[in-house]
């Protein structure tokens, strides 16, 4: 077992830092149903951490706990060494935790550029009147924000659709815009809920490349949920496996792959 403050070196030689997000004994109930049963795991600085499991295993619920959309009945959430009280999703976002959604939540009426700009709303520090009158600090700030956003647009190769209203885009590009908006916030932890769901092979390859590049280029810590085992094994440094709200495996992809309980869950051994 690793110490909280120590890092480790991955198989491909990347240096992983200390624990950023620590989930301790999380239990989440909806009425009488336990969606998450006493789960603990951590996410370390700079790593790509995957959460996998069959349908209904509680993966999305877990991500919603981290992003503050659900408040667990039991357990503790520690972020950067501090215990987080019950928080609203927008407060969590302001802490530097950005996310994307399984079913895509974009501002359909706005252009791609405006959507991504909303990711930087909390970076705006100039005063209200300064912004309204376009005077003083506001202008310099807006330009700086625009530059950052343009960098992300270039990075994700969506220059040609910057002015297009998001509602008109095909599914795969919407997913990419959503990723761009999350990146615009310069998050310390990026949560991706099934970033490749419903994509074809080519789109999946593109998205995988972007996720790796984001991690590599910006050093962003990423936690993602994914169904495609091949993709998960290629992308992630460590994997948490969930089944029926429980954690049944945790480790590097090769460790998880040889775990008997994980194999049973995926091959469908009866639970009795």
């Amino acid at each position, binding site marked *: 077992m690793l110490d909280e403050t120590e890092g480790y070196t991955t198989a491909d030689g990347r240096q992983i830092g200390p624990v950023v997000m620590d989930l301790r004994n999380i239990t989440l109930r909806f009425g009488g149903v336990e969606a998450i049963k006493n789960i603990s795991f951590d996410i370390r600085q700079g790593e790509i951490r995957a959460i996998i499991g069959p349908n209904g295993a509680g993966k999305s619920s877990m991500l919603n706990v981290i992003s503050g959309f659900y408040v667990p009945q039991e357990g503790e959430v520690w972020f950067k060494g501090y215990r987080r009280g019950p928080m609203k999703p927008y407060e969590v976002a302001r802490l530097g935790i950005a996310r994307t959604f399984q079913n895509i939540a974009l*501002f359909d*009426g706005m252009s791609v550029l405006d959507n991504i700009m909303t990711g930087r709303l909390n970076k705006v520090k100039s005063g209200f009147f300064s912004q309204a009158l376009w005077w003083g600090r506001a202008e310099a700030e807006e330009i700086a924000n625009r530059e950052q956003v343009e960098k992300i647009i270039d990075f994700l190769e969506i220059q040609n659709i910057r002015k297009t209203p998001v509602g008109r885009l095909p599914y795969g590009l919407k997913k990419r815009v959503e990723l761009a908006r999350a990146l615009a916030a310069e998050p310390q932890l990026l949560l991706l809920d099934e970033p490749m769901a419903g994509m074809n092979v080519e789109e999946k390859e593109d998205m995988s490349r972007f996720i790796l590049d984001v991690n590599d280029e910006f050093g962003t810590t990423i936690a993602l949920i994914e169904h495609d085992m091949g993709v998960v094994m290629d992308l992630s440094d460590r994997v948490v496996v969930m089944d029926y709200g429980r954690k049944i495996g945790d480790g590097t992809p090769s460790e998880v792959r040889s775990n008997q309980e994980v194999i049973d869950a995926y091959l469908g051994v009866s639970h009795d």
Partner: protein
Amino acid sequence: MDQLLYGSEVLINGLMTGVMYSLVALGFVLIYKASGVFNYAQGVMALFAALTLVGIMEGQVPFAHLINAMFGTHVESFGWNVPALLAILLTAGVMVLLAILIEKLVLQHLVGQEPIILFMATIGLAYFLEGLGDVMWGADVKTLDVGLPQGISESIEQATNDWFGYGFFIDRLDIWATIIAAILVAALVAFSQYTKQGRAMRAVADDHQAALSVGISLQFIWIMVWSIAGFVALVAGIMWGTKSGVQFSLSLIALKALPVLMLGGFTSIPGAIVGGLIIGVGEKLFEFIMSSPDLAGSWFGFTISATENWFAYVLALMFLVFRPQGLFGERIIERV
């Protein structure tokens, strides 16, 4: 030539009436844009704001009737007069307080409900506010004078008389209403396009979940939007109250805002302005043409009058048939 001059005068007066309609419609658009709620109470909010303003200016004791009935006292007035500007600021404060209460007591409990439920809640709110206004400030018609110039502008009458040989009758209050509305609209546009709060407002209007995920507090945005709508209601209340006295029929001007919104589209600030102007000019010109023996009389052989009562609604009906999203509204696209 004479008819043309009369017509121009009617046109200008129509434009100015239109500005007043736009002011009310603006309040609707703001709330609809930010929360998808059609706020039936907008007209009553204008009335409530005007009542409160008069009450504060004249130093009325709120709930005087209630207090007197309960304790057998005879309090009516504090015996002071508050200057108009201070009273307007205080009333704006009351409208912000009202927005906070509406968010805490009503909206917060209806998050995620169907728009029709929220609409019903605003109908309830309208009746509640009307009753509250009555109990707080009394039901008698009050005059409101915040120092805006009123009466026919003599300089315009003189000037037009010199140029055309026919003096235009234009109310100075209407001119001021136009100027104030223009400033208000410019401020609102600057606010919603350029400020962080305005952008957050547009984001909330579009998608609640996405807005939360980029760090926007829905609660804060809703209180802000209702406060702004309350402020717009206050401006509309001042204008209408100065023009025709603060009376409970003021809440009915909200009905005139409906056709304005159908023309302009529920989601567009410029739409509310243009819609108001079209309705204002349209109904005045239509009335002028149709009731004039020289025009309608000679063209059609008959004249009709009192068309102002129905013109706006018929126009709105035609828009509903041919362009339901209004002139500037977002196109309604149903994807299958």
